[in-house]
């Protein structure tokens, strides 16, 4: 049924439809609406699940790890500092091969205190062994959450569903909330491949010596390598049932494009509009929407971008001392590609600063006018007066 729903509500509805059994979470802006909705589902009986109130995000994920070890479907949500606080247990969840699904609302880290959009919180967790899926709008976030459970349970790795602070979490737009029946067809009850069992006592994840630790890690890598294939099957099935298609990366008007934008989150929608405007001006602009960040869909990127002239990556994040993180990843992915394009990195819209179609067009012009990339990433829209004052 089509509803006008907040991005946060889209996540909650997906959790309800997925018949999650245990939720543990700690409130943090701008995530809080997600778990508020879910706690209401739990209290009014809409969702037959146990909602565990905890005193921190670290405990939230610890509780979820315990529940998932017990063989139930689980969910948590957080943002920014909350995610950073979970860091230790992010590693544990993937190492323990628990198919946990978490929503992370991309928010800036302090100081200075800032509750608005910035992708650095989730991207700085890229090495924790979590699958990361970025969402563009409310429908995307609902559908991705449903697919996330199938994906997580197929490879026994946790999935982070990532959505932009406010631009998505707090924005109301039409969302098709599916009925329970098709969701049940798509997502059967969780059948754990292992679980704590009092009838058959045992211990998981105890001491592992050097002779086996590497194999354990390679097993995680192997599972990650399996993700694109599994994702493709799951997305295909999702499309059959729900009629909506989600690729790990979606190419928009790329075939003849001379400059292709690469970005993730709600900025993709802005880029779609900018590309259309540029096309109407006769410019050969294209867009590659990055949905799956971990594992990084290298083959897909090589396939779309090999032989192209220029790529402009819009990063709403920064790895200080290096560059925008998407740009880094893309460069690494295309290093061994045949005739790789030039990669222009742009850092824009940190801490909730607007990225408008005009910003995108400005990036397009800068890319068009450059012969080759001059710096790792160009910072867009900085207040020149402030910056100049530091230099003097």
């Amino acid at each position: 049924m089509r509803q006008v729903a907040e991005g946060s509500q889209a996540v909650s509805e997906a959790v309800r439809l997925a018949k999650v059994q245990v939720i543990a979470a700690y409130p943090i802006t701008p995530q809080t609406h997600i778990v508020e909705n879910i706690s209401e589902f739990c209290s009014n009986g809409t969702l037959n699940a146990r909602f565990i109130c905890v005193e921190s995000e670290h405990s939230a994920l610890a509780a979820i790890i315990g529940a998932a070890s017990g063989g139930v479907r689980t969910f948590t949500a957080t943002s920014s500092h909350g995610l950073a606080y979970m860091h230790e247990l992010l590693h544990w969840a993937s190492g323990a091969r628990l198919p946990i699904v978490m929503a992370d609302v991309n928010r800036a880290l302090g100081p200075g205190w800032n509750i608005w959009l910035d992708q650095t919180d989730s991207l700085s967790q890229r090495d924790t062994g979590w699958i990361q899926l970025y969402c563009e709008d409310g429908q995307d976030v609902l559908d991705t959450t449903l697919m996330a459970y199938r994906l997580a349970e197929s490879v026994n790795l946790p999935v982070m569903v990532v959505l932009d602070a406010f631009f998505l979490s707090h924005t109301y737009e039409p969302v098709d909330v599916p009925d329970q029946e098709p969701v049940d067809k798509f997502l059967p009850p969780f059948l754990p491949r292992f679980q704590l069992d009092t009838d058959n006592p045992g211990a998981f994840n105890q001491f592992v010596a050097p002779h086996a630790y590497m194999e354990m890690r390679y097993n995680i890598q192997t599972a990650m390598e399996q993700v694109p294939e599994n994702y493709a099957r799951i997305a295909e099935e999702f499309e059959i049932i729900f009629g909506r298609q989600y690729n790990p990366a979606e190419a928009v008007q790329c075939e003849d494009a001379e400059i292709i934008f690469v970005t993730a989150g709600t900025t993709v929608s802005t880029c779609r509009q900018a590309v259309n405007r540029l096309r109407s001006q006769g410019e050969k602009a294209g867009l590659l929407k990055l949905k799956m960040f971990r594992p990084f869909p290298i083959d897909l990127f090589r396939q779309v971008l090999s032989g192209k002239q220029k790529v402009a990556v819009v990063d709403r994040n920064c790895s200080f001392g290096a560059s925008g993180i998407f740009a880094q990843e893309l460069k690494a992915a295309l290093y061994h590609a045949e005739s790789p394009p030039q990669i222009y990195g742009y850092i824009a819209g940190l801490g909730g600063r607007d990225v408008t179609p005009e910003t995108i067009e400005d990036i397009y012009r800068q890319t068009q006018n450059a012969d080759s990339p001059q710096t790792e990433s160009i910072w867009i829209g900085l207040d020149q007066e402030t910056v100049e004052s530091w230099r003097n």
Partner: protein
Amino acid sequence: MTDYKIPDNKIPLFLPHSSVSTDLNKTGSWRYVRPLFDEKTSPCSAACPAGEDIARIEMLVSQKLIPEAWETILEENPFPAVCGRVCFHNCEGACNRGQMDDPVAIHHLERFVGDAAMSSKETPKVNALPDNGKKVAIAGSGPAGLGAAYFLARLGFGCEIFEAQSEPGGILRWGIPTYRLPRDVLAKEISRIEKLGVSIHCRTPVTRKMLETFKTQYDAVFIGCGYGRAIDLQIEGAQKAINGLQFLYNMRAQDAVPLNAKHSAAVIGGGNTAVDVARTLVRLGVEPILVYRRRRQDMPAFDPELQMALDEGVKLKALLTPIAIKDAGGDPAGHQPSYVVTLQKMKVSAAKVEGRARVVPDGDKTETLQIDHIFSTIGAEPADPWHNVPSGEHPSLSLSHCEFVNSDVPIAFGGDLTNRVKSVADAIASGKQAAIALDTYFKSGWDAVNEAVSRCQVGPGPTVSMAMYLDQERKDRNPHIVSYSEINTHYFKNAPRTIAPVLSPHDRSQSFLPVEYTLSKEAALEESRRCFNCGICNACDYCRLYCPDMSVIVENAERHINLDYCKGCGLCVTECPRNAMALKEEDI
């Protein structure tokens, strides 16, 4: 659904899993501190002159184990129904809960448990030793004498009480008005003592001569004659004042004293007797005025009782002391007041006497009071000089609540004769202490008495416990008194103190019906759950639930630590809501 179901491609998992028990890893070897169950002393029990095991009693009530609760009280106090009504509950002043919201209503609970015991068909089981062949004569059947008889009888002594009045009870029977202590309540609790084999000879006042006879006929004597004589006013016209204690006695003896309603009365004094007299007068329709030489906050009377008196219409005139009573020419039947009292105005001086403000005459300022009756309640003293502890003749031992004299036979003096605080609970305490002293004397000799008494002190003392004397589990309690900061208050929610139903001031002033009601069972259970049970394990099980090593073991309702696996993390001790555990360094 299977028509378009595409199976997920699952690759084998490589995960550490062991079905070998972790029993082989004896993590107890990591430990350098060890938790132990270490029950401690609750502040209420140490503040209770009778040493009742209050934290445990409230625990038993909360677990609906009411007979066990009254048996636990009766270990230490034969008068729970009486004390629940008349005791001024020091315990509540010491209650840790008072620092969180309000103290537990301990006296209401004691009354509830005492009343439940009285109305039950079951005979309470209290620990008692077999007859030891020794006989004790007891002078006075007030709370001290009855208390001594109760504890001595349980220790195997044969006890005979000699009472001057027609019925036993002393101050409980004759001095406390029925609206505070109904006669049947007292009678039932006294009969429980008689059932232990104690015989009470009424209308048999003990004289000095009889005391000499006792020394030949009995193995020991207890003297608990109380303060039988009121102190007279030393002013002009003092003989016109009525003795307040005598008035209360007459009320209880005849149930009515002819006084004209609408008359006025001045009650001189600021103690509990003054308040009892004033409240009795209100019920007779008289308009009483309390006249006290210090300020209200200096009054020795128990403040809640005073407040009830004021609510009932008693007036208070403070900082005034009578200096003369003269006839005013009125007659008892007429409408002219009978007397004119001249009152000296007093003022507070900077110096303090025993913590109370010292007052001195405010120059020669006086005022007069036209009044129909004057009651004197300025204190009491022993009725006979020999009631006092003899000094010098024989070796004697001053204990906190009694004097133990090694005369021809051992003689113990207790109750108001020896107690610093003149209260019912302190009188009971003196009887208990005397019983312990006498029993020790006969078993181990004079020199062992002091040590035996201090061995059964509750906390640092001076309160003593019969359960501890009789070598029950309670003697293992750590004497450390649990403080509020040692309570894990996260486990307790604020909850209002239960208020017992009480008659309105108007209804109270119209009759001698009991002022307060006993709590209902539901209310008592709810109130008992407010108790922190300081220092007492109530089997809440948080130690076991929080133990990360499953090392808190419960077997046959007993708890112990499995030291093979306990890492000494201390979680159990930290989580214990009531400080019934402790951490001890290992000897390494």
